[in-house]
C-alpha cells in the first residue's frame, strides 16, 4: 500500500468510527430523555440521573460532532472576501485560518481541557458513577481529533490539487436529504 493510500484508508476509518460514535451517542440521548419522561409520567418515579446523563451525553456528542464537522469543512465560515483573492493568496489565507483554529484547539481544548480534567479528576458526580474529570475528557479528546483534521487540511492546502475557494452559489452540498 502506498503512503497516500494508507492515509486515505486511515482517514476513512477515523471518519467512520467517529460517525458511528456520534450516531450511538445521539441515539442514547434520545433514549435518556424518553426514559426521563417515561419514569415521571408512567412510573411516577422520576429518574434523578437521566437529566444529568443526558446533559453529559449531549456535551460529548456535540464535541465529537464538531470534530467531524471541521473534518468535513462544514463549520460556518464567511469566505466572500477570500474567494475573490488569487489562488496563491487564498492558500495563505487558508493556512492562517487553519493555524488560528489549531491555536485555539491546542491552547483551550487540549492544554486547558487536560488540565481541567485533571483538576476535577477526583470530583464525584452526584448522580453518575463517573467523576467530573472523566466527563470533561470530551474536550481534550475533541481537541486531539480536531488537531488531526486540521493538520490534514493544512497539508492538503499545499498539495498540487488545491483548488481554493470555489464560489459555489448556493448549494453547499447537493441536497443530501
Amino acid at each position, binding site marked *: 500500500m502506498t503512503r497516500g493510500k494508507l492515509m486515505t484508508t486511515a482517514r476513512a476509518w477515523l471518519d467512520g468510527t467517529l460517525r458511528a460514535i456520534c450516531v450511538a451517542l445521539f441515539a442514547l440521548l434520545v433514549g435518556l430523555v424518553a426514559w426521563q419522561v417515561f419514569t*415521571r409520567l408512567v412510573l411516577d418515579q422520576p429518574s434523578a440521573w437521566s437529566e444529568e446523563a443526558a446533559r453529559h451525553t449531549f456535551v460529548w456528542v456535540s464535541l465529537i460532532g464538531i470534530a467531524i464537522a471541521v473534518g468535513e469543512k462544514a463549520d460556518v465560515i464567511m469566505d466572500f472576501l477570500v474567494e475573490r483573492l488569487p489562488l496563491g493568496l487564498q492558500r495563505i489565507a487558508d493556512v492562517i485560518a487553519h493555524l488560528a483554529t489549531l491555536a485555539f484547539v491546542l491552547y483551550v481544548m487540549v492544554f486547558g481541557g487536560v488540565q*481541567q480534567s485533571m*483538576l476535577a479528576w477526583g470530583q464525584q458526580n*452526584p448522580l453518575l458513577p463517573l467523576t467530573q474529570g472523566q466527563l470533561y475528557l470530551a474536550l481534550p479528546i475533541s481537541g486531539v481529533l480536531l488537531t488531526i483534521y486540521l493538520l490534514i487540511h493544512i497539508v492538503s492546502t499545499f498539495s498540487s490539487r488545491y483548488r481554493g475557494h470555489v464560489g459555489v452559489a448556493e448549494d453547499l452540498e447537493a441536497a443530501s436529504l
Partner: protein
Amino acid sequence: SCSAATGGDGEQPSTTFRVAFNQDIDHPQAQALVQLSDELEARTDGRLALELYTDETLGDQAATIEQVQSGTIDFAIVAGSLLENFETDFSVVNLPYLYESPEHQMSVLNDREIVGELYDTVLDDNIQMLTAYHGGVRNVYSSVGPVETPADLAGQKIRVIGSDTNVRMMELMGGVGTPMAQGEVYTAIQSGVLDGAENNELIYSTLSHDEIAPFYSRTEHLMMPDYLIASPAVWDGLAEEDRAVFEELLTASVDTELELFSTAVDEQTAAAEEAGAEFNDADVDAFREAVLPLHEERLTSELTQSIYDAIEAARG
C-alpha cells in the same frame, strides 16, 4: 490571583479579591460581604478589599468552585451540597431536620471543634473553607393546596435539588422528588409538569414562583448552609496580621448575615403575600419523624457520626 495596584499613599500595594456569587447584590450574603469589604478596607488602610461578581456571571456555583481551585478567582460563595462531590462526608451537615434553628446551625458550622476536621478534608482539593453562612430554611410550596402533613404531599411532583439524598428525602416526606434545572421550574409548575418545589422564601419570591404555586407551607425540612471558600494560595499568602483582621471580620459577618437574612425573609414573605401567596404552618414533627430514617442511612463514617452527635448535643 487578583488585581494589584499601587495603593492610595503609594507605599503598599492594594489587593482586590474577586468573589463569585450566584445571586444578586441585594442578597443577604452579598450584602454581608459588601459590608465586610468596607470594614476590611478601613482596617487595612485601603490595602485589601473584595469585589463581588454577582448573578452567576462567572459561571454556576460548580464552575466557580473549580475557578477557586485553579486560582482564577479568589473566593466564592457556594452551596454546601456541592462540597459533597469532593468529600462525601459533607453530606452529614446537609441532612434534613438536623438543626433546630438558624442560630443553632451557624453556631455548630462555624465551630472548628465540631467541623474543623471535616473542613480540612477539602484542602487536598485546593479548597480553603472560610465561613459557613445561613442559606435559609427550605419549605415546600405547591400549586395544589396547603401542605400540612406528609399525606398532603401524596402524588405531588416536587422539584428537589438533583441528588439521590434529596429525592429520597421527598419520598419520605410523602411526595415525588423530581430533579430539574432551576431555570425550567417556573414553566414546569405553570404547565403542570411539576406540582411544586421546595426552597426558602427569598428564592420563592424572587423567582416569582409565588405566582404559580401560591401555597407555601412551612415544613422547615432543610437548612442547607452556604460557604465562603477561598483559594488556599490566596489565603495563605495574606500577611498574618491581615489574616487575623479578615478572620475577625468573617466571624462578625456570620451574625450580620443572619440578621440580614431574617429581615429579607420578612420582606420577601410580605412581597409574596402581596402577589397572592398563602403561607401556612405544617406539622413539622410528623415530617421530621418521617424523614429520620434518612439520618441513619447517611451516617456512614466515624467522622460523620461524631459531627452528627456534636450537632445533636448542641441543640438548645
